[in-house]
């Protein structure tokens, strides 16, 4: 169930790029409030600006105008170091192409955010195991990503995103590289994690049926603008 207090609040956010003489408005004056514990799906066609908006929420990019307040912090005002700390402690990210480091085992991949957050060595093994248990992959702990299926790799990516116990999980097309059954399993997993940990999830997808089944709310973007927000049919049914 979503908290009433907003977890993320976007206020007249714009992100413009300059490509030679022309200016591209990837995100154009978007205002949106996402409640704590809410599962929001960002829908839209390719180039609609949904991934750019997600990157802004992740603190990977800075807005040209407007403000983003996430977990009480105005991201536009944070220094690069504070922004890195925000990415480390407040948000977890998963990607369409998993982005696991191929040379590392599952354990090492999941441990990476703990290293960056300077978590004590003695605490790490337990936290890694706990995260892998949540995605039911402890039996593959010593394997490398290349030895896993796409769905398993995405589950490892979810474990890596969860290991630092973030309040916000940002997913960029998490089912884009998976078949429909595996995609559904991943979204089930995300939904379970959300209900167990009470975290806010923002998921970028262009698969409306899946979004309608798993998200609480749908936000549709087009040409950098927020076209509409609506509760998901599932949420309405509930």
């Amino acid at each position, binding site marked *: 169930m979503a908290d009433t207090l907003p977890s993320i609040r976007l206020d007249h956010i714009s992100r413009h790029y300059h490509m030679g003489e022309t200016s591209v408005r990837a995100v154009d004056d978007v205002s949106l409030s996402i409640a704590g514990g809410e599962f929001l799906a960002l829908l839209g066609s390719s180039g609609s600006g949904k991934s750019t908006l997600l*990157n802004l929420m*992740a603190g*990977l*990019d800075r807005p040209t105008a407007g403000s983003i307040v996430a977990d009480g912090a105005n991201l536009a005002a944070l220094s*690069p*170091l504070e922004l*890195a*700390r925000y*990415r*480390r*402690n407040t948000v977890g*990210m998963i*990607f369409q192409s998993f*982005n696991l*480091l191929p*040379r*590392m085992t599952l354990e090492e991949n999941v441990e*990476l*955010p703990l*290293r*960056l*957050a*300077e978590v004590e*060595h003695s605490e790490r093994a337990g936290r890694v195991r706990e995260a892998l248990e949540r995605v039911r992959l402890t039996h593959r702990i010593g394997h490398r990503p290349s030895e896993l299926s796409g769905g398993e790799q995405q589950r490892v990516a979810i474990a*890596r995103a969860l290991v*630092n116990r973030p309040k916000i999980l940002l997913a960029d097309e998490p089912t884009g590289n998976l078949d429909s059954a595996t995609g559904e399993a991943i979204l089930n997993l995300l939904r379970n994690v959300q209900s167990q940990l009470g975290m806010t999830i923002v998921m970028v997808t262009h698969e409306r049926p899946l979004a309608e089944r798993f998200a609480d709310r749908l936000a549709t973007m087009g040409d950098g603008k927020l076209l509409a927000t609506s509760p998901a049919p599932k949420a309405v049914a509930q």
Partner: protein
Amino acid sequence: MKARDLTDLALRNLREAILRNALTTLGIAVGVASLVAMLSLGVGLQQLASKRLSQSGLFDTIFVTPKNNFRGMGRPQPRTAQSDKPPRPLDEDARKQLEKLPNVIEVYPQIRFFTEVRFNNKPYSTVVAGMPESSQNSGAFDGMQGNFFSSGYADEAILQIEFAKDLSDKPASLVGQDLILRYAERQGNPLAGSDASAAVGGFSVVPKELKLKIIGIVETEPAAGYGGYGNARLLIPLQTATTLRAAQVNDLRDIVRGDSSDKLTYSSLSVRAKSPSQVETLEASIKNMGFNAFSLLDASKSLRTFFSVFDLLLGIFGSLALAVATLGIINTLVMAILERRREIGVLKALGAADADVQQLFFVEAGVMGFLGGIFGVTFGWLLGRAITFGTNVYLKRQSLNPIELSSVPWWLVILALVFAVLVSLGAGLYPASRAAKLNPVDALRYE
């Protein structure tokens, strides 16, 4: 990120591209090796020269002469208040007084005279020199045939090889044989002192002979001390030479100056200090005693300057290879950025700060530099040993004594390691800063 995690990740990254990183490290090792080999040769040569020179006594010896010694003979003395007093003679009293000065090891006279030697009833002209016992350690007698003098008073002689060749076609066979030294002994004028007219002076010169046993043959011309024995071909113990009271060049000058005294005076004395650093103060004390004093300390300073410049030049040549290795590091790390662009993006998305990424690349460069430094010092040392070995093989063929041509002191090891790491870090500066500045969104998009 903690240092342990940073090092762990850096080592992991280096292991992943092991061939390329090993080759880069090898490049650094070759650079460091060339630097170490060059400097070890410089240091070795400097040590060799310093050792030989300090053994020769050139830089710890002060050459003392009476004040009047360098004024032209027969030239009138300047009429000053001071010159009314006759200059202090360099006699036995003066020698004892010099011996008592602080930091003095020994004081010995320079006794050298031109004379005739008879061997197998044939006359040979040569220069005889008295050698102090300390000259045994001067390095001049290293590798000599036969032995050094059994005592300071022994009636023994060491021949210089060229003179030995004059005496016999087989110089080695001379050892153990006798020769006759014919010399002119200076004897006091019996009239001096009893007759006022004798005040004008004079002394008798009486021909004498001394049988000497040849105990050794020396290859090089001994050069002990300033104004040493370079030209002497027949060497005898100093005390033996002193007791001979052989007439020397300055005796003629004494006659000209009207010095009738039978008292033993020296034309010069060599004062050896405990170390070259004490020469300067000792020289001043001797001058205060009323003698002329000279040393080669300034020459020693020039020598040190020469070796500093020499080392610098060797260092520059050695560094050229290291400069090439630096380009190798830059190239390797820039390539690594391109290859690991996406990984850098992931690290940043997971919360790595710019400084974390920068430090990661720095540590990788530093590790390559450190490992390259260790291998380089080892290679450099081996190279130095090989050059020394090769040189000694050549010297042995030339029947010369082996030398220690290269030297790798501990400071050179540390210096080379620090230099290798610093150069590598310097080379990593640009790639590391480029990696740190990478836009994470662009990096994540990179395929």
